[in-house]
């Protein structure tokens, strides 16, 4: 049966899959089954690892109920029109033994928040507001979460689930990772037969997080965000992804900072913009040049690649999948394969981090 997103236009994939046994083995150890999209990100190792490590159900949540987190992932993926992520969620629900009819009833329930328990409805409303309005709606959404009885720790984990889903949705949407095979998979005979086994393996690899000390204070931009999660397993996972992103040599550090700055500006996340602005000034970009870039997405100080990336970054904030994918295709003609993958990764992570920053840092 058709999923709710099968009408969403989806371009042909922009990147060639590449096998990397070490990465695939790493993902299989963590998830228990082959990670379907990993080969597309193998040319940028930090991104491939982040796509695996930032899954909340793999030991990152200590306080939030996993079922609420699963619903949030489903709703945000639907909101972001990510056909791939949504198809994976549906496949897992089918493997859990849910019928198509039951999944459809659940989708209908999700779209009518009035039928849901107040806590679940508040969490879903938060996920929707972050996808649609971004940080501008964070304050009201936080108030609603608190009113529904969520603790500070639960609220931070809700913020993380939404941010990681925003990241995962974008990284699968921008390069148009093929969704059709995953959408068809639940109806295949072998999947029907192996569904319970798949579910057993996946469930066995899901686990609750345990208190994890942040061993060293991070120094890179977004360090405040990581420190805000100190004590939670989210902090080291997020810290490692961000640190490895900065260390990656595919795109320059300045290019990545500029992309993050544009996304922070587009989302109106002042706390993120401040931290990234300081980092860019340390990279030698003066305040007036940065103001010019952020106001007009152009300045003589930008080189050709930076100019392309700055303009592309803004496309990833609010988008229609097919339009975003066409713009990414235009970008692919001007960048190398790994550069395109890293650009998609940086933009995706930045969108998640800026939404998280508004939730956690302003809250802190």
């Amino acid at each position, binding site marked *: 049966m058709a999923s709710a997103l099968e009408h969403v236009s989806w371009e042909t994939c922009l990147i060639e899959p590449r096998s990397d046994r070490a990465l695939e083995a790493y993902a299989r150890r963590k998830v228990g089954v082959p990670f379907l999209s990993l080969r597309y990100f193998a040319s940028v190792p930090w991104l491939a690892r982040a796509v695996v490590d930032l899954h909340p159900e793999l030991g990152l949540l200590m306080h939030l109920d996993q079922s609420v987190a699963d619903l949030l992932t489903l709703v945000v993926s639907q*909101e972001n029109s990510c056909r791939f992520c949504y198809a994976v969620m549906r496949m897992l629900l089918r493997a859990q033994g849910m019928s198509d009819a039951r999944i459809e009833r659940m989708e209908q329930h999700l*779209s009518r928040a009035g039928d849901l328990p107040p806590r679940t409805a508040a969490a879903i409303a938060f996920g929707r507001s972050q996808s649609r309005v971004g940080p501008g709606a964070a304050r009201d959404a936080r108030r609603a979460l608190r009113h529904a009885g969520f603790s500070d720790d639960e609220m931070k984990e809700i913020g993380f689930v939404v941010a990681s889903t925003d990241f995962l949705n974008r990284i699968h949407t921008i390069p148009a990772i093929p969704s059709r095979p995953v959408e068809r998979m639940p109806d295949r005979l072998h999947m029907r037969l192996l569904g319970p086994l798949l579910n057993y393996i996946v469930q066995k690899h899901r686990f609750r997080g345990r208190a994890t000390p942040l061993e060293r204070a991070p120094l890179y931009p977004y360090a405040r965000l990581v420190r805000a999660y100190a004590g939670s397993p989210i902090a080291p996972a997020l810290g490692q992804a961000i640190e490895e992103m900065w260390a990656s040599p595919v795109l320059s550090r300045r290019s990545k900072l500029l992309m993050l700055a544009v996304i922070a500006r587009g989302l*109106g996340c002042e706390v993120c913009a401040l931290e990234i602005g300081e980092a860019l000034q340390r990279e030698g970009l003066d305040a007036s040049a940065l103001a010019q870039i952020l106001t007009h*997405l152009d300045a003589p100080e930008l080189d050709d690649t930076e100019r392309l990336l700055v303009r592309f970054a803004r496309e990833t904030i609010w988008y229609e999948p097919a339009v975003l994918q066409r713009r990414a295709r235009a970008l692919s003609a001007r960048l190398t394969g790994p550069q395109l993958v890293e650009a998609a990764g940086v933009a995706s992570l930045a969108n998640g981090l800026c939404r998280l920053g508004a939730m956690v840092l302003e809250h802190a």
Partner: protein
Amino acid sequence: MTWTAALVVALVIIAVLAGALWRQRHYQERLKAQLKAATADLEQLQNACSRLAPAGVVQRLVADGIALDDAPGAERKVVTAMFVDLVGFTAMTERLEPALLVRVLNGYYQRVSDAIEEHRGQVGSFVGDGIVAYFGAIQPNPWQCDDAVRAALAMRAAIRAYNGELEREGLPPLAIGVGIDRGPGLAGLMGSRARREYAFIGRAVNLAARLQGLTRIHQVDILVTEALRAELDAGFVLVPMPAEPVKGFAEPIVTYAVRGRSEPHQDRGQ
């Protein structure tokens, strides 16, 4: 005899069960087909609605299952408003057959709408041969002024290319007038119970419409206000026009004609 009777009874039971199963399956397939048809109808309806209001608005209403009567009210926003109109349209209506006129007009609407959407604007409504568009109305857009002027320049290029096609068919060329202003107002679904449309209400829309009228007086195609100029990238080449009195505004309005992009900016691929 007993065995034969038992076999017959068993066969009858199997036949009845098989018949019931077959009927159940048939019934399920019919329901599935009906559901598929209903889904297709709804999708078609959603597509049709997307032509009446910006797609983002329709998608939200559908996703949230909101009845139009319960749709959220207008929000206060700073938006860039654009008004596009055909110069000499009345004369054209007298010269062309209605069917041909509609075809030429549809080509114009399509090209102008494409330029607006390509630059992240939303077509608000078609008013005769005029088009009202907004930038930054549905989602926050800090680059809305640059986007609007880039869209206007893209329209100029698109209409020039369209004129080449019209000329080959022996049809008269089109000319557009574009007015752009930026300012605060209310954006959202508005109208009566029976009919609503996505609209922006504010001084900027009125002034954009007036500026579009001023393009005839100044003999230019794109005019922007002082408020918009202040937000624009320095790479746009603007020429100040003499202040003109405008209906509904106490002071004469200073406007700027947009010539294009300066050469270094064109070299940078803009």
